[in-house]
């Protein structure tokens, strides 16, 4: 494989990886706090994309306003979902919460189908953000640079909140154990809401970035990135924010490189992601960065 082709693959990996990372951070935030695979997270991507879409095309807002609006509304939706569908089940078996999450995701998708229609729509890329870059034989979109930057900034912000602020400390307390956190006069509900605010906002950004990279929005668009990014989060060590970042990039690189080096196996690409997931779950449940805990009787 020639050098520039390899570099091209690297560029591709960075694009894909940073997208995975961005969305995975949202997953890991929520999971870290309430130990729930938020299936609805994937559909928040879709919602954000549609809001931005309508904002730009129907209400002809400037793209930045549309994006901000999308992020805000997605955040609100995310918080509402938590209040309505997860909070009532806080003290019931985890299976119920998980089912509830699946139900929400199921609902969002189908409501979107009914209201907006199943046919995909082209996502308007603001040309201020998206242009082609050619370096010799290698060519990629400006997004290949923008998305990682956004991802890193958001990572930094989240890390700051979690590590430095009072909120963040409370968060980590809650993530250890609701009751004790409650006893330590931490308002668990408030913290969880905050978590969902951050998580959903990230989903909003993720959805917008995703649909700028792959400019097509449809009601089921969340399905695949959703699962892939959860895998990324698990790989990195679910609950660990930098872990999600790393997991995202690792998955991105693996997915690109397997096709690059073994084109014959390109049909198995998605299976490959799951294989990684299962291996990680079995042999290093804590993921790359997470710590493995012993269960006490």
């Amino acid at each position: 494989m020639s050098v520039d082709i390899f570099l091209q693959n690297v560029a591709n990996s960075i694009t894909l990886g940073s997208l995975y990372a961005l969305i995975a951070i949202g997953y890991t935030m929520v999971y870290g706090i309430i130990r729930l695979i938020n299936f609805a997270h994937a559909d928040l991507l879709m919602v954000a994309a549609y809001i931005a879409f309508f904002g730009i095309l129907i209400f002809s807002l400037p793209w930045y306003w549309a994006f901000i609006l999308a992020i805000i509304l997605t955040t609100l939706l995310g918080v509402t979902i938590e209040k309505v569908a997860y909070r009532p089940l806080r003290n019931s078996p985890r299976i119920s919460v998980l089912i509830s999450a699946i139900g929400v995701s199921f609902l969002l998708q189908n409501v979107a189908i009914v209201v907006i229609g199943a046919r995909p729509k082209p996502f308007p890329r603001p040309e201020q953000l998206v242009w082609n870059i050619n370096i010799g034989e290698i060519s990629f979109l400006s997004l290949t640079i923008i998305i990682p930057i956004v991802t890193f900034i958001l990572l930094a912000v989240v890390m700051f909140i979690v590590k430095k602020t009072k909120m963040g400390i409370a968060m980590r307390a809650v993530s250890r154990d609701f009751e004790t956190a409650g006893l330590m006069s931490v308002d668990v509900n408030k913290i969880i809401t905050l978590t969902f605010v951050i998580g959903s906002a990230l989903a909003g950004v993720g959805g917008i970035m995703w649909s700028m990279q792959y400019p097509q929005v449809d009601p089921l668009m969340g399905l695949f990135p959703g699962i892939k990014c959860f895998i990324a989060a698990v790989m990195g060590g679910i609950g660990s924010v930098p872990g999600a970042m790393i997991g995202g990039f690792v998955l991105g690189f693996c997915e690109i490189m397997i096709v690059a080096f073994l084109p014959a196996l390109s049909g198995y690409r998605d299976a490959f992601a799951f294989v990684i997931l299962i291996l990680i779950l079995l042999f290093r449940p804590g993921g790359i960065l997470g710590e493995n805990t012993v269960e006490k009787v």
Partner: protein
Amino acid sequence: MLKIKRGRYITIVAVLIALSMLVVGCGGGAADKGTSDKDQAGDVIKIGVYEPLTGTNAAGGQMTVEGIKLANELYPEVLGKKVELVVVDNKSEKQEAANAVERLISKEKANVIIGSYGSSLAMAGGPVALDAEVPVIGCSPTNPAVTLDNDYYFRVCFIDPFQGTVMSNYATGKLGAKTAAIIQDVQQDYSVGLSNYFEKAFKATNGDASIVAKVNYNTGDKDFSAQLTEVKSKNPDVIFAPGNFLECGILVAKARELGINVPILGGDTWEAEEFLNQVTQYKDIYFSTHFTAEEPVTPVSTTFLDEFKKAYPNKEVNAFAALGFDTYILALDAMERAGSADSTAIRDALAATENFAGATGIITLDENGDATKTAVIKKVMDGKFVYETKVDPQ
């Protein structure tokens, strides 16, 4: 306390929504009853339509139904009876498709059935119709297996072997390609089948080494950069990438972004605005299809065009609408020729179809019930689908 209240409130709202839906549903049910009582009297002829209106194939299904409805408005009567269209969604799922056909036959008592976009769906519906001996006319399922040993399945479109060969010949002849790369969706029978026929034909003319790369992706994938980079590294003269417009739109656009400027070829599924929207600013994108507005092949074509423009002023004329249109008028024509709405009679009439002038061209059904007819090749230019040439069956 307050939270509990809120919880209650939400339940109530949700329940109300659900109830209202159900009520509406029943209302609709009542309305349906009304009509179905009427047809016991036998003064309507029912044409059942099963198409994917939701799910992965939604776009194709909806375009087809537009064409069918248009034809129905134009020709609402046959044998002096009113024609009633019964359209059911098959959700792009096989078991739903089978149910849908069974419903149309034994519940709605459809005399003839139209559908379905998506060969696998058609294959799910086919056997049901065969058992009940009700003829089905496919608009756009191009997989040869659909009509295979099923005497009650017909179609007004050409089939993949032909389509694949046509594109291969076009690539070699018109585009002077010596080498080609194939990018296929391993989960779509359509994509895999078409690639296969293209490959055969292309190798036949240009030698076994002429296919320089063959890479796969899965339905629902959004990132094709790796596959395309692989193809780029082999720099072929053309790329053949048949598949869903959903994936292909992004795929083709991405190819151009990656600086792959060789012609990219595809199949009839590309004729959808979803696809066009993705590739408006690019060129050298060719695909085979069933119909063109530029070259009305028959007088029917012109009527279809005018009527479509009238009915859907802000929509692009597309092949699937045209095919839908044709299936409907062919069904009516068959009934006229049979002189009755009896299913077996219609079936025989359909089997005997020769030189039937449809919007998409002259249709003659062979012993399999497949149409042998002209393929049209279109290309993307200045953000529009532009007629390139047409290829007659030899």
